[in-house]
């Protein structure tokens, strides 16, 4: 049903509009003056100062692969992250573990794991969907490269960024 919005009754001076424009101009001038006098505190000069140390635990930076306490790959190349990835940034080539590994007949590992960082939207769905807790969004946010090929992170790069993740993870640990 259509309904009528009651408009406020404006006084003559408000209808004239110009006094309010001048009031607005004075407000912006006040801000300009405070800034010029150094009264407004500017928080941070970015490239020199960073707040990396204050990033929260749940910060969603670049997605990485992690190894467990025994230096094993956690990823078993189930490809769930590849399927859920909204911009289709992840490409996994599944592979076997080498025969000398004692888990060779039990688990699998990715032969190649590519994340295209020009596509990644840092949504964190891959981390959420991973049943093995192998993929994590870490705190790197300034991912740069000189060409497109450099922006595709391969397995080596992903483990280098990810490092080792100790113990149980956040979401399955009732104490946290």
């Amino acid at each position, binding site marked *: 049903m259509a309904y009528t919005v009651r408009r406020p009754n404006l006084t003559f001076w408000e209808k004239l509009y*110009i006094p309010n*424009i001048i009031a*607005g*101009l004075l*407000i*912006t*001038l006040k*801000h*300009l003056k*405070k*800034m*010029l006098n150094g009264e*407004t505190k*500017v928080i941070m000069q970015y490239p020199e100062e960073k707040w990396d140390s204050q990033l929260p635990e749940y910060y969603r930076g670049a997605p990485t692969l992690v190894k467990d306490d025994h230096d094993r790959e956690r990823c078993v190349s189930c490809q769930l992250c590849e399927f859920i990835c909204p911009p289709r940034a992840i490409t996994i080539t599944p592979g076997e573990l080498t025969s000398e590994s004692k888990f060779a007949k039990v688990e699998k590992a990715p032969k190649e794991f590519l994340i295209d960082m020009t596509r990644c939207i840092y949504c964190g769905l891959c981390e959420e969907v991973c049943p093995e807790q192998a993929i994590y969004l870490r705190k790197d946010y300034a991912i740069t490269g000189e060409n497109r090929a450099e922006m595709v992170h391969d397995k080596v790069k992903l483990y280098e960024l990810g490092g080792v993740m100790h113990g149980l993870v956040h979401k399955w640990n009732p104490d946290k």
Partner: protein
Amino acid sequence: MDFFSTLPLELMAASVAKTLFLVFLVVLPLVSYTVYAERRVSALIQDRLGPNRTGFPTSLLGFQKDLQLFLGGLGQPVADAMKFMLKEEFTPGHVNHFYFWLAPVLAMVPALSTLAVIPFGNFMFGHKMVVADVNVGILYVFAIASIGVYGIVIAGWASNSKYPFLGGIRASSQMISYELSLGLSAVPVLLIIGNLNLSDAIQYQVNNGWLLLPFTDGKLTAREMLLWIPLMISFVVFTISMFAETNRLPFDLPESETELVAGYHTEYSAMKFALFFLGEYAAMIAGSSLIVVLFLGGWHLPLLPINDIESSMTLSGSILGLVHITTFFAKVACILIFFIWVRWTLPRFRFDQLMKLGWLYLFEIALVNIFITAGILAATK
């Protein structure tokens, strides 16, 4: 060729020199630094810092840090220009190629052409500091300035996509609406001066005080007091219409980035986009110059002696001429800062509010104002 052969060579050389000086030494740097001022002032108003660190990129050559050659990011316009030159010039496949390439030119050229009749100084080296001292100066400005809308409309049409198209439509309706009040609000000034020549407009203000500040010649008569009322109204209407003509906020509906992506230049990239950008700012400078010439006494500074043709050949006369030119552009810069200040204060109008303001208020006020001025002039003759 006959016409050109009758001209003295010195006059032609002087015109070319004045044009080069005006365009390359004054207007283009002024445009780039207006863009810088826009970014810096907007940042300060919003409690940010803005671009404050652009220096010479020595780190590209392997040094540890960039060399801070320019104080506080004053190198930013140079860096911006470099960036625009190096960017990919991309033409989408679905556009009308001829008009797509023509539009940026049409946006830039009229803005620069209007500057031809603006007297930006008194005399230097025995020459009047105006490129074309024509007797229809103000008509020329209005005629050429309204061509500026073609660039926007053609860009909107040739882009063959919905947002530029909407921007082009809005630009045409807005420009046509505000052209009326712009022209009509200048009529009281012309009635008082009695001449269309912009140099004469300044000469009148030198003799009788600036139109907006009639006491600058040291005396304030009853007639000037009376004329002050319509001139104030005229100034306000003229300035508001100038905002609309140059597509500045609160009238930037052709561009309105929150509704139309980027309006008429959505499909443009690199230097073609930069031309639209420069054209917009050049139009702002032309508009501000016109405000300064018509209402704020042009290059005239009270209490300062004025040079003439003979004295401008001497050293002191030349210095005086330089002071006049500096005064003019200082006044223009003040108006530009005001433009920027207003832009970062007011929100955008809705389209129907824009049309209502133009047709129902400014147009009528400007029209009635002409009769008031004429009445005062007739009564005090």
